[in-house]
């Protein structure tokens, strides 16, 4: 009987990497969610096939690649690559190699903490703007109407906001690393 606790702990350690890798491949959060779930279930069902010799992340990435192939097949009905797909073989190899590096998981954990901390510093109006745009998927036109600004002004504010969040994450990571 496979050990669920061990599987769950291994899965949770590599999940952020897999999630990022899937999104980088499909460019769609819902598809990435679906594929992540399908990969998790397939990995759990076949966990006895993981022999423990190589990194767990490499093994589940293999499963995720198969799920991704099935996904593209379903989406395109064999009519060729989707424009959003990464098709450059060297870029694909580089993405795979980066994802298989166990150190990336630690980095992503730190990034998550930094992002959480940065979000605390975002004002409520700015957070609302980000929520409308990123979480609720409202268009620039809708947001512009809601707040009574021009579309270009909304675009600019969102661009600055996102840039600000990114800089905040980088600053915090730098500070933490220097502190360490």
């Amino acid at each position: 009987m496979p050990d669920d606790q061990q599987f769950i702990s291994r899965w949770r350690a590599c999940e952020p990497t897999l999630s990022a890798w899937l999104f980088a491949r499909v460019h769609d959060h819902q598809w990435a969610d679906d594929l992540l779930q399908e990969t998790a279930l397939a990995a759990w069902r076949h966990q006895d096939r993981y022999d423990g010799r190589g990194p767990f992340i490499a093994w589940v990435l293999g499963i995720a690649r198969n799920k991704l192939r099935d996904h593209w097949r379903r989406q395109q009905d064999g009519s060729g690559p989707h424009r959003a797909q990464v098709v450059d073989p060297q870029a694909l190899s580089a993405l795979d190699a980066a994802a298989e590096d166990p150190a990336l998981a630690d980095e992503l954990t730190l990034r998550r903490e930094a992002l959480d901390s940065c979000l605390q510093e975002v004002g409520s109006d700015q957070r609302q703007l980000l929520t409308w745009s990123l979480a609720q998927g409202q268009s620039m036109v809708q947001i512009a109407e809601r707040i009574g600004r021009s579309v270009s002004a909304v675009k600019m504010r969102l661009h600055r906001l996102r840039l600000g969040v990114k800089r905040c994450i980088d600053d915090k990571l730098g500070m933490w690393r220097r502190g360490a």
Partner: protein
Amino acid sequence: MSDPHEQLQRWWAGDLDEADAAEVQAWMREPDHARTALAQAHDERVLRQRLAGAPTNPDISTLIMRERQCRRRRRLLTATCIAAAALVVLGAGLLLVMPTSQDPVDATPPVLAVVESVSGAPQWSAPTLETRTLTLSSRLPVAARLALPPGAAVHLRLADGSALDLHAPLDLPATLRLGDTHSLHLRSGVLQVQAAARSAAPPLRVITPHAVCRVLGTRFLVRVDRRTQLNVQEGRVLWEPRLGATRTLSADESATATISGSRQELVVWDFGAGGTRLGGRLNRDAGGEAMDVVGEETLPQDAAGLLVRRDDYVRSTQPPAPPRPQLLGLLQQAEAVELRARVRFATSVPQNLSLATLFCQSAEDAARFLPLRWRGGEQPAGDQVFEIATVYTRDGRQLFLIDGVVVGDNAFAWPFARWNDHIQLMLHQHRGNEGRDLHIVYDRFSLSVY
């Protein structure tokens, strides 16, 4: 590359042309850049999840628990089949000890609501559970979905003590989903909420296709049909229409929300003046009744992106192109979508012809469609122009038909992430008209995205 961070964001949003996308990929060949791209993808995922208040990842423990439940049920079914076969073989009189099942409701924590009274014949279902009749003392887990036929009613008590009266008027079935401990998704029907005071927990909210009603006080009534009407009876409710300004309503105040705000119309198929005439013959095929197109058509180059795999019903001479990323992005972000077609029948139309527009995930979905029948018994005659419209709205990942035939029927829910595979304009013809010629002009086929 000028700004990799911005270019990656634009690529993921579908805003880059092929040349720029190729440039981003060339940039990603460097190991450090690939790592940067993954880090940014990670930030993008987490940021969206945090802002949406969603859990970071699908919980693996829950997935495993559900999978185990499914396996148990499959094993139980297999054992039951074997036992039944053994009974037949061995003859009557042989008693077999059948495996007993746990009540799946008990195995699906947490219980969110208990039924305190019920009238009519309501049903409920939940993920991994089959549909069952709602009875007194039924214990409903998170994600349970209640379906009430017209005239039925049910009184529920939530775990926090809040009382819900769900009622299906005679002209409207009711559908309610218990989202989680603080979210109720009312698709149609009338819901009376008597909210219990909550201290630490998030406030209870009722989510409809048109608005979110967030409890600030105690008692209110929500009715959902093709619009959402809120009447506050006691206390206050924060009213967040999908289109329009958020405001707080106090006792004796009311508000109405529809999908009628700003919209963006995308003409996905416009043949212009004169149109392209499709000659068709009504035939029956293996799937029932259908129309085969025998004429030819010309598809404008720029419309091929979204158009429309027409399968067995209206056969195209040109295969569909993959959907355009920008358009897909727009559609996936839409709060609601209206699909509108203008058609002219150049010949008289047989009796019992109906026409439907629908989004399909796959060819199998086409078999599940219900037609948008002519309203008021009106039947199209020769040279008449008809406008038809179908409105869909989204709830998370599901796409619901809210205008057309049925409100809140489960048959019309598709996973939102995949609904845009193709769109179908479908003719459906009932028995008795086989072999008749039919000429139809499609003038315009458009999507409005809200």
